[in-house]
């Protein structure tokens, strides 16, 4: 197949993001200007987002090794929104940074492009390419404040473990190729449909491991809390939102395409992993006293819930994963956004570290009512309480489980949510308590005026609006399901 103009047009979103990255690079070489670079980045991302409207009309379309279908566009929208939020938060975060600030946006743009390629890939080569393009800039982003021991530790930890996971992934791909002689998903699925040999199974399992690492599925979750805790706020936000969405979408694509997952032990393994992930994630979060670590564990649990959709793999599952991903993304952006705004180092008296200890948040409500309201709403949404988008997501997951009559999974979701409530409530009530003589941490006075404030307020507003009136979101996600061919 040769590339035509249509293909180029269909690929314009990642192309636009890459172009912006090059522009940013050149601009940095020419002259450093923090706000200017941030504006270029945001404009580029917005253009890519706009171009998706046009691309949406052309979908579904198959470019070489990439599918521009509903799922890819859906993922691209989520990734771009997350990247926009991160860029905005990064500006607030880096304003007082003493080292070079502008390269962060460069890394962010590269990772964004990687995520978009990854979620559209239909070939193991593009999958690998996208995954690495997503991960490698993340090493840099996580260790960006390298003067800070924890940030450096987070970056190195992620680098080492992620590299190990990548080798698993590559080995799995090699085994699959040896078994089937194909590298594209369709070919793989066709060959694996019948009798899948031992090597094929091993390959699939190894690939699952590699991707499971990125999603921090238990037992590949060890890195998550440390990296979330140590990484700078915007980088952790990107890792928790865009990166996970992209990897999940490609896993969804694989599972839906490959019948190897429909029956047999791989399927059971996936189910067990889902249950383990929900329970372990929630249990480990119980005793955390650091908000970023707590959010890390909570995101592990959320991907446990999401894996339910993969295990069931038919009926409502694409719709359910779509809805859940949207709600998860909004919630995560809101929660991490607030943490980033509050914890931004270099605010007076901080000593240069991110403030994420729960005691920093004590009584926040009486100083910053709106910021606290945002955090409360996002926490409620994570707990799946009505009036927030999280409830719609949880509703979908439980509905999916009940429809497929997977009672173990449903039971685990319920137990997981009950455990989860405990720590969400603990954080929430901390925000409202007030004690004299406590350590105070604060967002800059004019936080709401800054773009970062707009981001978190917007996320919280969307969480509420979609929680009360989810019909538009459901309609949008359904249109994707149709485009992706079910």
């Amino acid at each position: 197949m040769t590339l035509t103009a249509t293909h180029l047009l269909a690929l314009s979103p990642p192309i636009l993001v890459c172009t912006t990255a090059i522009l940013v690079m050149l601009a940095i070489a020419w002259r450093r200007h923090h706000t200017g670079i941030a504006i270029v980045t945001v404009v580029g991302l917005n253009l890519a987002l706009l171009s998706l409207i046009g691309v949406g009309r052309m979908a579904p379309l198959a470019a070489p090794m990439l599918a521009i279908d509903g799922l890819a566009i859906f993922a691209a929208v989520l990734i771009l929104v997350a990247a926009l939020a991160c860029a905005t938060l990064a500006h607030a975060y880096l304003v007082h940074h003493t080292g070079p600030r502008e390269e962060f946006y460069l890394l962010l743009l590269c990772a964004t492009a990687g995520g978009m390629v990854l979620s559209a890939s239909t070939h193991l080569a593009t999958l690998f390419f996208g995954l690495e393009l997503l991960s490698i800039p993340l090493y840099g982003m996580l260790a960006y404040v390298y003067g800070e021991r924890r940030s450096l530790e987070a970056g190195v930890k992620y680098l080492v473990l992620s590299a190990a996971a990548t080798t698993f992934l590559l080995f799995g791909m090699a085994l699959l190729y040896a078994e089937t002689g194909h590298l594209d998903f369709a070919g793989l699925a066709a060959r694996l449909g019948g009798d899948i040999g031992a090597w094929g199974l091993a390959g699939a399992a190894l690939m699952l491991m590699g991707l499971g690492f990125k999603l921090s599925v238990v037992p590949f979750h060890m890195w998550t809390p440390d990296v979330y805790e140590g990484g700078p706020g915007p980088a952790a936000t990107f890792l928790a939102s865009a990166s996970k969405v992209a990897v999940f979408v490609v896993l969804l694509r694989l599972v839906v395409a490959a019948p190897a997952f429909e029956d047999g032990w791989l399927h059971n393994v996936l189910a067990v992993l889902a249950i383990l992930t929900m329970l372990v994630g929630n249990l480990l979060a119980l005793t955390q006293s650091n908000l970023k670590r707590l959010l890390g564990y909570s995101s592990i649990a959320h991907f446990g819930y999401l894996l339910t959709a993969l295990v069931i793999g038919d009926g409502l599952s694409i719709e359910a994963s779509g809805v859940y991903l949207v709600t998860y993304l909004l919630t995560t952006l809101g929660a991490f956004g607030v943490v980033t705004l509050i914890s931004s180092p270099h605010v007076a008296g901080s000593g240069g570290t991110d403030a994420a200890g729960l005691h920093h948040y004590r009584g926040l409500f009486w100083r910053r009512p709106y910021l606290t309201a945002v955090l409360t709403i996002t926490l409620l949404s994570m707990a799946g309480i009505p009036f927030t988008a999280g409830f719609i997501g949880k509703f979908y997951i439980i509905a999916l489980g009940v429809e497929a009559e997977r009672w173990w999974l449903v039971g685990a979701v319920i137990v997981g949510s009950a455990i989860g409530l405990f720590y969400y409530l603990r954080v929430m009530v901390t925000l409202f308590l007030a004690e004299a003589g406590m350590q105070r941490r604060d967002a800059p006075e004019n936080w709401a005026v800054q773009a970062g404030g707009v981001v978190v307020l917007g996320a919280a507003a969307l969480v509420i609006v979609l929680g009360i009136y989810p019909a538009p979101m459901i309609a949008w996600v359904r249109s994707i399901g149709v485009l992706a061919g079910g």
Partner: protein
Amino acid sequence: MTLFWLILIPFIGGLLCWQADRFGDLPPRWIALATMLIELAITLGLWFHGDYHLGNVGMAGEALRWSMEWRVAWIPRFGIEVHLALDGLSLVLIALTGFLGVLAVLCSWHEIVRRVGFFHLNLLWILGGVVGVFLAIDLFLFFFFWEMMLVPMYFLIALWGHSGSEGRTRIRAATKFFIYTQASGLLMLVSILGLVFVHHAHTGEYTFAYATLMQTPLSESTAMWLMLGFFVAFAVKLPVVPVHGWLPDAHAQAPTAGSVDLAGILLKTAAYGMLRFALPLFPEASQAFAPVAMTLGLIGIFYGALLACGQQDIKRLIAYTSIAHMGFVLIGIYAGTQLALQGVVLMMVAHAFSAAGLFILSGQLYERLHTRDMREMGGLWGRLGSLPGFSLCFVAASLGMPGTANFLGEFLILFGSFPVAPWVVVIASVGLVLAAIYSLLLMQRVYFGPPQGEGIFADLDQREYVMLLALLGLVLLFGLYPQPLLDTTGAAMGEVQRLFGAVSQSTILPMGIP
């Protein structure tokens, strides 16, 4: 649209209270009071102008009839609607909510001095959620409000509660309350979804509408499992004994307004849920389950009464009496005769008044004595103005003295259940004796006996006096002339009895409702 406003008014009022906080402490209080008075006035207006007799209940299979109905599409993907409806039962309970809401605002007038605006935001949102529960007949919407009202209640207990001793902190109590009710609520969600998908499998359409789902044909075992999902959720909230653990802590640690709402209204949502959903949706399964439920009710009566006798904390004592009273309600509901069901409604209203009265009184005691420990009280009669006198009246109501509404409620429940379950009634009657014991024990230990101190405490002020007098007046009014209440709920209870009771007469029914 009026029905929608009934839900919306408390929510808007709450937001106004929050914002009015910046003008001082008084504006939020007055706004909250005005909000609840408007709510109460609308409900009473509906009561006097509406017709709740619904004519003769029609033949089997006829669509349910409501006195008022309001529906608008919400999530078309699953056939979910904002579907509100009002009948006699919900009307009475909403009026109760409005009235107790006014009391809750009044009784926190001096008790709550910090973060007044935010307190009233939470208080009014609880009430808004409860009104939503009483009005929603779309199962999704019902669940929505059911879960939502927990959040403000949590904050109410966690932020304005009293921390007890021995590690019984208010946050712990609030968390316990939340996890108990939320987790059991999720079981109900699973049941709701199960019902919806069974219906979907039969008809190919998604709907959460109450009337439609009632027609769903269910196999016996499915119906039993789904019914249990509903029952567990309601049993936790009622509470029924093995799952009552949150109640004493929550009551003891909550501020007075929280206790009044909790005992007066929140517990009633569970009984309402059973009457409205668990019984009519699964009549056969409920009928089969009735002996178990009644046994649980009996256990509750004795367990609550016995534990009440041994409490030192006055609010914990009242909390345990609530468990005992709710045991009667549970028996009445599962007896399913018209008389017993009418008794249940009367009992719910009466218990709301008497428990609210007792909680308000213990709140006032706490304001004066700064303790809720009965070991530090005693000999208070004559030193508190008219407060002990009121206590005596409400204690008498709580033990079911003839002339009070509680007596009529218990009497109707026992009388109505006798034809169905004579032994249960006989045993339950013994519980009445225990009620007398714990009630008199309360009086004796707090107001009589050797005095612990000398001082004379402040008499009731005008606000407190009016509150208690109004409550007492209502207890006596419904105790002496309950007919208006019974007339209002008669048709609704007849409907429940028709759906539920019909099964017991003809056991060999096909599937679905008769």
